[in-house]
């Protein structure tokens, strides 16, 4: 009975591969974007269902609003990657949620496009064979690699920044791996290093939202420089 219960145990770890664990300088709790109006487009497809895209957009909206931005979100089906702002039904994409418009000061207009892709999936069949033969004492491993594409554009659609962040999740299932790691969590790992807790999700969120904040801040600064440059030339 106990073994049956333990056999359903699994340890899921998050491993940032590229870009996600770069240092972030902006503090997402400070008003870094108070002079920006951001439209967040969460594009469903591949890794993101429509509801997941909507949930992602809501979280990113809160992230940017906490930094002082005026934010609207769009989760529409897109016709093609070359024409990201035209929804499949031909109608203009409707804002699902928007923060209160602020008419006081001119704000820098930015559009953030978010896409998620799965770039690799492996079930490691030998590990699952061992998992079966050892009655779940040997770990069965499932590994996914994902890419998060982030593009920031100005109001006219010119690309200001584009980054692809990559990470992977490794899920090790079985009684052996769960008990072994649980013991390690109790005996010698720090709380931050625990593998049987929800650290994986917390780390992934912190990395993704940190990088998003940094990329959008850098793009905002670039756009403001270019806007002022154009204004200076007109004078």
């Amino acid at each position, binding site marked *: 009975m106990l073994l049956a219960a333990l056999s359903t145990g699994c340890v899921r770890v998050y491993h940032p591969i590229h870009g996600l664990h*770069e240092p972030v300088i902006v503090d997402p709790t400070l008003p870094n974007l108070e002079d920006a109006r951001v439209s967040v487009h969460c594009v469903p497809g591949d890794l993101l269902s429509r509801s997941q895209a909507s949930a992602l957009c809501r979280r990113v909206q809160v992230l940017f609003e906490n930094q002082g931005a005026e934010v609207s979100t769009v989760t529409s089906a897109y016709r093609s990657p070359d024409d990201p702002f035209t929804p499949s039904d031909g109608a203009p994409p409707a804002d699902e949620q928007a923060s209160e418009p602020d008419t006081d000061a001119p704000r820098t207009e930015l559009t953030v496009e978010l896409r998620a892709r799965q770039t690799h999936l492996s079930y490691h069949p030998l590990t699952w064979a061992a998992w079966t033969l050892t009655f779940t004492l040997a770990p069965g491993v499932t590994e996914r690699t994902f890419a998060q594409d982030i593009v920031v554009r100005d109001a006219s659609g010119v690309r200001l920044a584009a980054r692809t962040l990559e990470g*992977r999740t490794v899920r090790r299932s079985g009684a052996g791996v769960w008990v072994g790691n649980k013991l390690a969590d109790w005996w010698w790992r720090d709380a931050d290093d625990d593998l049987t807790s929800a650290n994986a999700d917390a780390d992934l969120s912190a990395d993704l939202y940190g990088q998003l904040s940094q990329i959008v801040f850098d793009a905002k600064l670039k756009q403001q420089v270019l806007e002022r440059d154009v204004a200076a030339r007109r004078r």
Partner: protein
Amino acid sequence: MLTFAFIPFLQLNDPAPNIVRSRDRARNLVCVRVEPLQGAVEYPGRIQPPRPRGDDADRSTLVCRERLLRRGLRAPRDEAVLNTLEDRAQDVALRVSSLDPALRDRTWLVETFYDHPEVLDKISFATQNALMAQGLSVSDRHPKVAPGDVEVLTRLDPMEAYPAACARYQATGSVSGTDALLALVALDRRATELQAGLCVDGRWTWLP
């Protein structure tokens, strides 16, 4: 029971956090996933090329290397700038080389405005190399302005200071008619991206 205790130690070559690899150690790695064909070229003998009739399963290899310097050893901003320096230098050089073809005949000077001299030198060096890789002629000469000019320029808003400095460079002959100056400017301490500006014939332009 003994076997039971050792089972979690399987798959230790996986760079993800596991029973012996802490989260911090895993985060100190930079990895890239390579396909068999590319991997066989880059890591001959270690990654097998695809079989002539194709592999049975979708195969790829995760290649990881430790960061040159341990995380936390450099200031986060320096770390962020230097980690992506090569890509960003190449990007700027590509944008510069795709400008007016007449500018290709000029001698390019590179000036970096950044807080830390050690990092500043690395940025300038990487950018000079990237410009040379684009077939441009590059000089390591640094344009100079008079001390009086510096006093005035440092009081100006950055958006006015750089165009004014550019005009002074030309007036003093520091950047002559056969030169072009590429400046990389850190405008905000929170930014990891440097803004690129161009000084040609006394006219300053921020590169898009």
